[in-house]
């Protein structure tokens, strides 16, 4: 009897986490470069009270055994790296990645971070940085008297400098892919970090070896689909509710058992 209480409890527990994840997705519906997460569930271990296939006293086989499950658990929270929609901004330092790949940035700790949020800025030295001030790797500096910057799909950044007729090439923005992007660790602030599960980063020029290309003047929007999240929210909430009903039923049974002797 107590088992049913705990079983339904695990069900409520996973649905609560499911709602947490949906809430985070919805909160980031307008976050540029955000990738939605998805909670995946598994059933917990089973207690076998009688094994199927064993022989009975007369030599016949037990066709089906008795196994009692112990509920559900969270298997994984996966980032879904589906392409988000593009939004035109006409800002020359906004860039979207069309296809696979991450921009590499240097975090304040000196470690490398990876992001798809391409709303870049320049800092006081003219260095191209993210909104949080993390510089791009390899570093690109825009000279002071630049009138316009152009970034080509293959990542080459060039600047038109006042008083010069030819545009000056400043450097190349590189992209990085991972064997298993779902294994990356989300650090918040749209930054991901490498883990053992993600595999080693593979860096290259945009457009080569399966890497995406760069689109100047656009931003990649969040890939959260509000309609889908709303449906997930309803389903998750109802699943939570039905689990609470199971707890109530188990509780009532326990109460009846306790009331047999008055």
């Amino acid at each position, binding site marked *: 009897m107590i088992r049913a209480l705990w079983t339904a409890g695990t069900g409520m527990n996973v649905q609560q986490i*499911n709602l947490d994840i949906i809430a985070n997705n919805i909160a980031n519906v307008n976050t540029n470069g955000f990738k939605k997460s998805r909670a995946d569930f598994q*059933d917990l271990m*089973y207690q076998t009270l009688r094994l199927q296939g064993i022989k009975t006293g*007369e030599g016949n086989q037990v066709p089906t055994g008795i196994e009692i499950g112990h509920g559900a658990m969270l298997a994984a929270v996966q980032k879904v790296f589906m392409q988000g929609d593009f939004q035109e901004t006409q800002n020359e330092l906004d860039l979207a990645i069309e296809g696979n790949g991450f921009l590499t940035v240097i975090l304040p700790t000196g470690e490398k971070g990876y992001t798809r949020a391409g709303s870049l800025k320049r800092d006081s030295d003219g260095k191209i940085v993210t909104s949080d001030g993390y510089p791009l790797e390899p570093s690109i500096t825009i000279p002071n008297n630049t009138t316009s910057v152009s970034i080509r799909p293959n990542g080459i950044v060039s600047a038109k400098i006042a008083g010069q007729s030819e545009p000056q090439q400043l450097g190349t923005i590189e992209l990085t892919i991972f064997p298993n992007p779902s294994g990356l660790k989300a650090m918040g602030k749209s930054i991901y970090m490498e883990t053992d599960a993600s595999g080693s980063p593979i860096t290259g020029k945009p457009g080569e070896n399966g890497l995406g290309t760069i689109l100047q003047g656009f931003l990649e929007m969040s890939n959260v689909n509000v309609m889908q999240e709303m449906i997930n929210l309803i389903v998750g909430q109802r699943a939570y509710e039905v689990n609470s009903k199971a707890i109530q039923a188990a509780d009532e049974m326990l109460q009846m058992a306790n009331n047999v002797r008055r």
Partner: protein
Amino acid sequence: MLKGIYRTITGKTVTERRMEIVANNIANCLTAGYKTSRPIFKLIDDINGSEADKTVAQKGNVYTLTSFINFTEGVLVETGNNLDLGIQGDGFFVVLVNGKNMYTRNGQFTLNNEKKLVTLDGNPVMGEGGEITIDGTDIKIESDGTIYVDKKFVDKIRVVTFQDKSILKNYGRNLFINTDARAGETIPENYAVKQGTYESSNVDVIKEMVEMMSTLRAYESYTKVDQFFSEMMEKLINLGRM
């Protein structure tokens, strides 16, 4: 008198098991690839065994219980994720766990750091040629399970079934194991692997709610009978005191 009380005890035990199974179904109503378990009730008299093997209590209409797994298909949910696979029709994916083949209907796969196709627990998914390595970005999986990466043939996902599915036992973690070594894997006749979808749980919540209500009421009836017996005995005992 006492015999009757034994009957309600076993009846209550069975009802508790039933409730536990229902609670497990409900807890897994959103677990991908989960299959509903169902309890079955039996008369002890139906069970094979010599008359002498049965205890006094068993000779009455005492119920015992077995459970079986309902392998009907769950709904395929569209995700657009190209490593989510659903099987339409009969069949299971083969997963290697500690060197042993296990079977699952949950096709939420991912790649590990060696670019191998694995389950969310990191167990490799088997193809016709063993473990599957996917090295590339353009992944296309045909309905027969053939995998093309960057338009090149890589492998075919193994999908197998069993003549008699009752030999499959729940292992947890969305896996089933084969309990009868003599029953071999067969290739299902009708199946289609759908890329970008996964199979949801086949738990019917309404059915589970009805099951739960009837379980609860059955338990209530047993306790009422117990109270009735208790009152009768009380009266008998008090009779002696007069």
